[in-house]
């Protein structure tokens, strides 16, 4: 296997140029909020706060604030659900917590591996929070962390990326587990491969609010990075969770439950039907992804950004049926 020793030369050239000041240096852009400014959260239920991210790709301008994040306040302590898409967002989330309570942050729950949900982890380093994740989350971060750190550099910019670290969970969940916040228990459930192979949900037993992570998308096209058939199969199990409201991973908050699952179920059905038909007819992958699920195009934000990718992953998975 031929390797490229001269790539080192390439890199050395780059270093030299950078040292000589010949490279354009990105100018830090003023963040949307100052560091101490609180993320604008709303109280969804008694002691439950959440912030709705924008339906967009992560950028310097939005500081990676594209997913829904939140926190739950117990009698003794606080649990945070997802840290956001940058350390800046993580700090703003901490500021939002501090604006309503001075109780310690006991847990930071990561619903899964994606950068918009856990790039903010490093902000919690000084809070003493234990990071909680799916049993598969550390492995997933190992195989993707370096790629995430480099692939977002262009859109997020050096100023935001500089402080982002891949911080894996230390408390791992397999099956179900309860977190005690004092007079308030949070039921965590680790799912089989669906959106990713490390999806975790958090259910507040006191108010019946379910943080779905990205097992539920509203308005923002679902993205597939785990198993389409696994996701579809587990929708029935998800629906059976007796929640009265949900904080989806993306989309308006709060959402009706289990009605919030209907749009994505419809999309998955269209995608599965079209891809299965293409495979059966012998249509090559590159052609099949151009037409699959186009009937859903008008129903979602970011459809053009993610549908072909979902179709690609779906094709590679369903081909083995």
């Amino acid at each position, binding site marked *: *296997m*031929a*390797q*490229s*020793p*001269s*790539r080192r*030369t*390439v*890199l050395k*050239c*780059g270093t030299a*140029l950078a040292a000589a000041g010949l*490279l*354009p240096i*990105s100018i830090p852009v003023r963040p949307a909020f100052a560091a101490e400014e609180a993320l604008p959260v709303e109280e969804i239920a008694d002691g439950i706060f959440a912030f709705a991210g924008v339906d967009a790709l992560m950028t310097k301008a939005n500081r990676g604030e594209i997913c829904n994040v939140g926190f739950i306040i117990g009698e003794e302590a606080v649990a945070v659900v997802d840290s956001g898409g940058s350390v800046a967002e993580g700090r703003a989330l901490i500021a939002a917590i501090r604006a309503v309570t001075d109780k310690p942050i006991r847990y930071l729950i990561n619903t899964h591996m*994606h*950068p*918009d949900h856990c790039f903010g982890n490093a902000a919690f380093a000084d809070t003493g929070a234990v990071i909680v994740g799916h049993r*598969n989350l550390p*492995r*997933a*971060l*190992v*195989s*993707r*962390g*370096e*790629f*995430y750190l*480099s*692939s*977002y*550099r*262009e859109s997020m910019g*050096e100023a935001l990326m500089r402080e982002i670290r*891949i911080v*894996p969970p230390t408390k791992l969940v397999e099956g179900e587990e309860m977190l005690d916040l004092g007079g308030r228990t949070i039921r965590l459930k680790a799912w089989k*491969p669906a959106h990713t*192979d490390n999806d975790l949900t958090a259910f507040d037993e006191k108010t019946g609010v379910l943080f779905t992570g990205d097992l539920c998308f509203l308005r923002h096209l679902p*993205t597939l*990075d785990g*198993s389409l058939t*696994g996701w579809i199969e587990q929708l029935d199990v998800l629906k059976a969770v007796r929640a009265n409201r949900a904080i989806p991973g993306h989309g308006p908050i709060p959402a009706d439950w289990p009605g919030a699952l209907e749009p994505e179920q419809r999309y998955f059905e269209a995608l599965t039907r079209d891809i299965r038909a293409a495979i*059966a*007819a*012998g*249509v*090559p*992958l*590159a052609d099949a*992804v151009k037409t699959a699920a186009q009937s859903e195009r008008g129903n979602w934000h970011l459809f053009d950004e993610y549908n*072909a*990718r979902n179709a*690609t*992953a779906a094709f*590679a*998975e369903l*081909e*083995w049926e």
Partner: protein
Amino acid sequence: MNPHPHRTRNARDCLSLVLFTVLLGAFPISPGQAEETSVPESATWSSLKPDVFGNRGIEAASGIIAIDAPKRAEDAAIVPVDLKFNPGKAAGRIKVVTLIVDENPSPVAAVFKFGPDAGVTHLATRLRVNAYSYVRAIAETEDGKLHMTQTFVKASGGCSAPAMKNQDEAMASLGKMKLRVFPPNAPGTEAMNRATEMQLMIRHPNNSGLQMDQLTRYYIPAHFIRGLTISQGNRLIMTMEGGISISEDPNFRFEFDSKQGEEIKVEAVDTEGMKFENEWPSEPSAL
């Protein structure tokens, strides 16, 4: 293995134009070479080419080999690439095709060698593409000449990583194979084409092994299909020497001159020395 996982895309992007100029100075192209190489240069390729092909001249493809890949990689882990071969009479048949992803940590994705009477006219597979990169195919014809074609693929944005989606599943069904034989009128096949089209699929994580474990700072060992032989009866169709740039669950769709009634045999070996073998009748499978 020569891991360079720390290369950052922004640095590379900023550098590409500057480097292009710098490298033209650093690696002067002799007038003779320049005439032969009528294809666009890229800085990475300039430094990569001597490692793979030494000082051999490479001509433009001029229809002998054609490459097609999406302009933007939708899923970085699964980028379909399609090769068509039309060597004509002058150059003789294509003996070897080398598939390269310039900017990947291990740029040579695969080397395919075709049997003397296999008559392979079309080959499609799937690649991992880590960053904005040229994907290029170099064909060697019987006359010993090299012919190159390339296409530029923009990396997928954001959270689509060139990694396994369902790691437990990938390992659980390791080595499982599937062969589809397409009927002659299947979509995507040339009308009136008498070649037979088949698709070989192998379950394998084809793990790149280049990711660093954030906790231990050790690199995960690579685990991939390194060799593959497809034959019909006693006749070689093709072999592949593979690398980590071939996607998880390696997938090859190809057209060749099939001899009716002779079985298709496949042997694969991975980097841990595991061997996978299978054989199938060459009649069209139920679709």
